[in-house]
């Protein structure tokens, strides 16, 4: 492995970490409601704007603006769940027929709405968030990274680890996993499934917004900035198995590395297509992903 390969691998893994922040939430939502949230990228976009505007316009220190972006995303997730997701499970029996279509339409509509609302209210210009540290580049052997990216990667690792631990061991985490394994069974065991889905949406929105905030010094947030990260997280969730959190983390790192190498060794122009092709192949031939369980219906 030459120096450039090490550099590509490390930078790919770091990109993968940010993908993981997005994909975990999406995967949890799929697990618990069996829907894909097509507005997921807009949580990311809102997070980037929240961080940038809170830090720059209000002059709040970046270390306070960062958690505030998480809070904004979580609130948006809560609002989405309460206003739009309830019909998916709260006893609207006649909705069974068009349930999947409803979820796609309503989240797709929400995505368009948020993009255009931000475009009109904040403006279509790109915003660049303030970096957490000013160090422009750090040299680690053959690897070149900006100081902000390195620090953001460290924070991302910490947040991912805490989230994964919470899902695995905390009381609510166990309840969420129970609901995603078997909704009816969980509710018979006394688990409040509505509350579980509120928590999942808040966590999902918060994590996506947090990813947007962490990346805002790099991505030049514009209203449609969330579209590609969202597509990446759909790919990851399918690769990792819909609903599986460890699967989502591993698939994120995998995709980050594949894109990083593919852009250099195969084609730079088509770097965004590799994942899409993987996504189609997986959906057609192995819809349960690398780690997901094959669907079982009773």
């Amino acid at each position, binding site marked *: 492995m030459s120096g450039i390969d090490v550099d590509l691998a490390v930078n790919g893994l770091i990109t993968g970490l940010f993908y993981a922040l997005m994909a975990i939430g999406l995967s949890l939502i799929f697990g618990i409601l069996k829907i894909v949230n097509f507005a997921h990228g807009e949580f990311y976009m809102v997070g980037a704007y929240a961080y940038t505007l809170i830090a720059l316009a209000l002059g709040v220190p970046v270390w306070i603006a960062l958690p505030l972006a998480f809070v904004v995303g979580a609130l948006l997730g809560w609002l989405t769940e309460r206003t739009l997701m309830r019909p998916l499970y709260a006893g609207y029996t006649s909705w069974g027929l068009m349930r999947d279509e409803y979820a796609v339409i309503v989240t*797709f509509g929400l995505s368009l709405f948020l993009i255009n609302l931000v475009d*009109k209210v904040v403006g279509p210009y790109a915003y660049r968030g303030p970096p957490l540290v000013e160090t422009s580049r750090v040299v680690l052997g053959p690897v070149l990274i900006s100081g902000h990216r390195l620090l953001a990667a460290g924070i991302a690792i910490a947040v991912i680890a805490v989230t994964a631990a919470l899902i695995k061991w905390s009381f609510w985490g166990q309840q969420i996993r129970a609901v995603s394994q078997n909704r009816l069974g969980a509710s018979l065991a006394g688990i409040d499934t509505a509350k579980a889905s509120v928590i999942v949406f808040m966590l999902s929105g918060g994590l996506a917004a947090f990813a947007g905030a962490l990346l805002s010094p790099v991505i030049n947030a514009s209203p449609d900035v969330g*579209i590609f990260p969202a597509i990446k997280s759909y790919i990851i969730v399918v690769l990792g198995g819909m609903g599986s959190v460890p699967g989502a983390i591993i698939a994120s790192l995998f995709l980050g590395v594949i894109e990083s190498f593919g852009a250099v060794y195969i084609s730079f122009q088509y770097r965004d297509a590799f994942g899409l092709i993987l*996504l189609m192949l997986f959906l057609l031939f192995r819809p349960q992903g690398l780690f997901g369980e094959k669907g079982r219906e009773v």
Partner: protein
Amino acid sequence: MAPSSATSPAGNRSGAQLSNTKTTVEFRAALVAMAIVALIPLGVSNPYWLGVLIVSMYFAILAGAWNLLAGYTGQFSLAPATFAMIGAYTTGLLNHYFGVPPLLGIVAAVVVSGLVGLLLGRAVLRLVGPYLALTTLSFAEIMRLVASNSIDITRGDLGLGVAGLLDSRVGWYYLFLGALVALLVLFYMLLRSKAGLFLQAIRDDEVAARRAGVNVVFWKTAAFAISAAASGFAGALYAHFAELVTPELGLIGQTGLIVSMTVIGGMGTLAGPLVAAFLVYVLSEWLRDVGGYQLVVFAALVVIFARFFREGLWGLARAAVQRWGRA
């Protein structure tokens, strides 16, 4: 707890007789709307507004085609704009490189986009709901990336110049209207035949439809191919109208507009999406002049209609007529 939709969506689906009556009423309403559209050039000669109406008709065809697939067959594809793009590039490339006349190019576009639709429909046969939406979304994005990155062939985002077909804008207006009415009649005949029942049976319960002897594989694939061919037709017409083909035709935002029109008009109704295409597009041009909030308004309407008025404007109108009839 029930949502405030005025009528149950399943209410009118029992039996061929009822379904046919429903479709016929919708067909007549759509014809009346098209007759009104046909009279507009008598009063409006402003080329800008005629252009707006022509683009509305382009979207009306796309919304109608997507509605056949999503509204009537329950296959929620996120690639309708992509098939329009494929149709536009088929005739565009043929014309640009081989000098194929537009009319022949349009026929080729229908065939090519129909074939691609057939293949995609066959591939995604077993996928439902979110899986289908994601697969078609990635198909759409891959196609758009290919179109915008194959710069040597398609000139990428600069766009490909293609020959025009008609000189007069009013001529284009009636050409598009003719295409729209022809497709409307075609869809009506399709839906009124047994095929229409098969498609709706598949949407309502695929397993039951198969048990009742419906050839699910054939009809699902056929719906995909027909919808794709109609979208490709619209895209090819548009290519010669605009005299330019760009990858922007396949943007996900375009699909967003098509979905909005269909949902606001009423999914699974013949007239709703057509009429809504005009309302949404003309209104959006008008809103553009007064502050540019058009997309915010339409996206909000999509969410509100999907959440509270599942049968769209058509359902609201029908409920209003029924209430008025009783009073």
